[in-house]
């Protein structure tokens, strides 16, 4: 009798992995395996335990129970993991911008004191790979576009003999076209026998790039499927654990009069580079203007300039009247400008303040919150408790300090502060970054409701889906300039993507 064919050893195998941090159970009995030479997706909401699991695979955390095996061998430390061929491609590239591609790849793996020799050796080893990837080994990394920098990161891992590549949200900084190129690269690597783990929350990418997908929810694996056997809607419901509401139709109302407008905004950073380059825009009552663009093309500066937080040249107009330069931010606040900052952990809350104190940040001088210079503590706490309940902040206890709230609840607290009333104008930076699908739904609903109520909204988002779902008009930023403006009806992912890549209407 012929022997049963021995099943091939999986590249990566999680066997009943559990991990707790204090009271939080980050992973609970996680078991699945990844076959060598495949692209395996991992999806889940924020806090579903994806990052912890990858940390365990990379040997950064030790599981409390269970084990991780790489090609059958258990790992106990990051050193083990690297030695067995795990390579991590970080979301934020860890590259030295003033070094060449070659120097960056060799950095940390020089293999000897004499740099010239190791560089020469690396050049010989890398030349074919680099040529195949369209990379010039002598190019300075700082001069490369983001998509190519990511390839440098991948080459870096491959040079260290990585057999298993872990990519954590790799497309966050890429244009759609660059993302497609990345997936083609990953396909080729898989065909060569490498194994790829792709962590993302974009279901479209899972469908486009992976062979299998593992869905995680609350630290557990809820599904482990062949990608071909599922679809985006099914995956979304698995992630959230319930049915999602369909996106409502777009507003039919005509936008009203201009609330906030900018004329010729220019702002240069410390190095003299124009981060905002003659930006004009108008926000009208009852409309959402979406700003699309690859991260770092002036969107952050646009938000800061419109909020009066950076001293940009040019004019800001509020309902047709020029906003003076002095105390711009405070004045705009007083006029009723609401602002959900893009970096909410850094800007949105004061660490160590109690919830009621954070609930008036930026509005501490409103008559509702203070009178004759004294804070109206009892009134503020009452209002805070009401808003915390309305925005489902848990626990809804105004006297707790900000540390007592999870990241998602801190975000909800900021939303409760900025969206609680109907402001005349609202600036929103990446409103759904880092929060789960359920909360995203609520925030989108709230933004739509504000639009119906007449708020003029500027929405900056790295998610084209989000912009397409919400915006009435779409502006595309490249290099600090607005390179294109599209009505929602004429916008498509492809058109916006081409504009983001700087190709304008060409193709």
């Amino acid at each position, binding site marked *: 009798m012929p022997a049963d064919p021995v099943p091939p050893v999986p590249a990566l195998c999680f066997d009943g992995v559990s991990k707790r941090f204090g009271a939080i159970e980050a992973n609970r009995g996680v078991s699945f395996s990844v076959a060598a030479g495949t692209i395996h997706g991992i999806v889940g909401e924020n806090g579903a335990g994806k990052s912890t699991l990858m940390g365990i695979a990379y040997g950064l955390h030790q599981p409390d129970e269970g084990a991780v095996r790489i090609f059958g061998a258990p790992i106990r430390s990051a050193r083990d993991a690297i030695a067995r061929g795990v390579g991590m491609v970080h979301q934020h590239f860890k590259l030295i911008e003033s070094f060449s591609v070659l120097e960056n790849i060799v950095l940390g793996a020089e293999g000897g004191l004499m740099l010239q020799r190791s560089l020469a050796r690396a050049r010989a080893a890398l030349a074919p790979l680099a040529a195949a990837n369209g990379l010039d080994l002598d190019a300075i990394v700082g001069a490369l576009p983001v998509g190519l920098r990511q390839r440098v990161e991948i080459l870096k891992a491959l040079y260290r003999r990585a057999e298993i590549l872990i990519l954590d949200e790799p497309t966050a900084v890429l244009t759609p076209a660059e993302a497609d190129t990345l997936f083609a690269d990953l396909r080729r690597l898989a065909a060569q026998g490498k194994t790829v783990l792709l962590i993302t929350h974009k279901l479209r990418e899972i469908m486009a790039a992976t062979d299998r997908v593992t869905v995680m929810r609350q630290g557990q694996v809820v599904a482990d499927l062949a990608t071909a056997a599922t679809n985006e809607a099914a995956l979304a419901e698995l992630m959230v654990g319930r049915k999602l509401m369909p996106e409502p139709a777009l507003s039919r109302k005509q936008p009203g009069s201009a609330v906030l407008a900018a004329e010729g905004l220019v702002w240069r950073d410390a190095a003299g580079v124009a981060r905002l380059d003659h930006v004009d825009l108008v926000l009208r009552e009852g409309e959402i203007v979406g700003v699309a663009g690859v991260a770092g093309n002036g969107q952050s500066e646009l938000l800061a300039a419109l909020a*009066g*937080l950076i001293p940009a040249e040019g004019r800001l107009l509020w309902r047709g009247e020029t906003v003076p330069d002095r105390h711009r931010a405070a004045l705009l606040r007083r006029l009723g400008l609401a602002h959900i900052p893009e970096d909410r952990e850094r*800007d949105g809350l*004061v660490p160590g303040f109690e919830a009621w*104190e954070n609930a008036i*940040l930026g509005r*501490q001088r409103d008559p509702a*919150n203070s009178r004759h210079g*004294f804070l109206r503590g009892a009134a503020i706490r009452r209002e805070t408790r009401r808003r915390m309940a309305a925005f489902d902040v848990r626990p809804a206890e105004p006297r707790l300090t900000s540390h007592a709230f999870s990241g998602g609840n801190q975000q909800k607290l900021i939303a409760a502060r900025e969206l609680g009333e109907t402001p005349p104008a609202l600036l929103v930076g990446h409103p759904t970054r880092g929060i789960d699908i359920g909360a995203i739904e609520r925030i989108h609903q709230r933004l739509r409701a504000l639009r119906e109520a007449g708020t003029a909204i500027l929405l900056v988002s790295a998610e084209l889906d989000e912009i397409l779902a919400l915006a009435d008009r779409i502006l595309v930023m490249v290099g600090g300039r607005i390179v294109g403006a599209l009505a929602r009806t004429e916008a498509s992912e492809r058109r916006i993507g081409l504009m983001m890549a700087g190709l304008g209407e060409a193709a």
Partner: protein
Amino acid sequence: MRQTLPPLLEFVVLPAANLAAALGITAILFLAIGVAPGTALGTMIEGAFGSSEGVGYTLYYATSFIFAGLAVAIPFQAGLFNIGGEGQAMVGGIPIALVCLALPGWPWWAVLPLAVAAGMLGGMAWAFVPAILQVRRGSHIVITTIMMNFIASALLTWLLADILKAPGDPSPESVPFADSLALPVWDGTPLNVSFLLALGVAGLAWLLLNHTVWGYELRATGRSAEAARYAAIPAGTVAILAVCLGGACAGLVGINEMMGVLHRLVDNFTAGIGFVGIAVALMGRNHPLGIVLASLLFGALYQGGAELSFDHPRVTRDVVVAIDGLVILFCGALEHVLRRPLAALWAA
């Protein structure tokens, strides 16, 4: 990462544990010089609290420490470390002396408000220089306030040596103030009405920091410059006001020391009180109530230490300074050393 502890541990157990550690090392020091630690501790407690005279001295020392502690704590709440309490107290003392010298026949209660205003303005003016340098030029306030201490000391010496010196008196002192200006004291001790002033100022500081918009903006700036910027809080103005208010508190040290005890302007009348204020603020967690409690402790240490060196010839003034230093070391510089074990104990 710094662990947060429940309030009982944070504000009672942790400071008590730090103090106990300091006293433990002190006990070893006593054994080394041949004094029974138990007896010595008894003498200190007896000296600080055992008689109305002892209590009077303890509270008199505490008065100046409250002013000096607030001088550190208010800027600290705004994220700025004011090391210049000593200099601000010295310079605040100059206008106090000038007011007292200019109004010889007046009763003390009529001069006191003027002298308070003068002292606050003097301290504020001295604090304004490093504050504006920090905001406009980015000169680090720790460095500039330290240097301003030296300048203040030189200024006071020069004034007393060349301008305000009492004729015929060899020491660098001004002529005495009129007797009518002496603040009423308690039971023959140096404790005087400025203790009530100190409690009042601490109460006002608490009200200001915790219940006004201005205090809110100050604390927000101190805890997160980024969040304060987002909230359109004018960081520069907040910084200048916080440091100047600290200086104003430091400027009041002269009320206690000169109108209460010395009755003249004396060179180096602050005698390091401004620096004790740093330890007081650290131990009091930069909270006005904590500062009052920490000031009482340091007042007791000063008075008890003086009594101890009086009773035990082996305990020299230097040993007392060493005890103060140990308390400052454990409650100030090493205040977080016991945090982790305490947190572990609590969790267990």
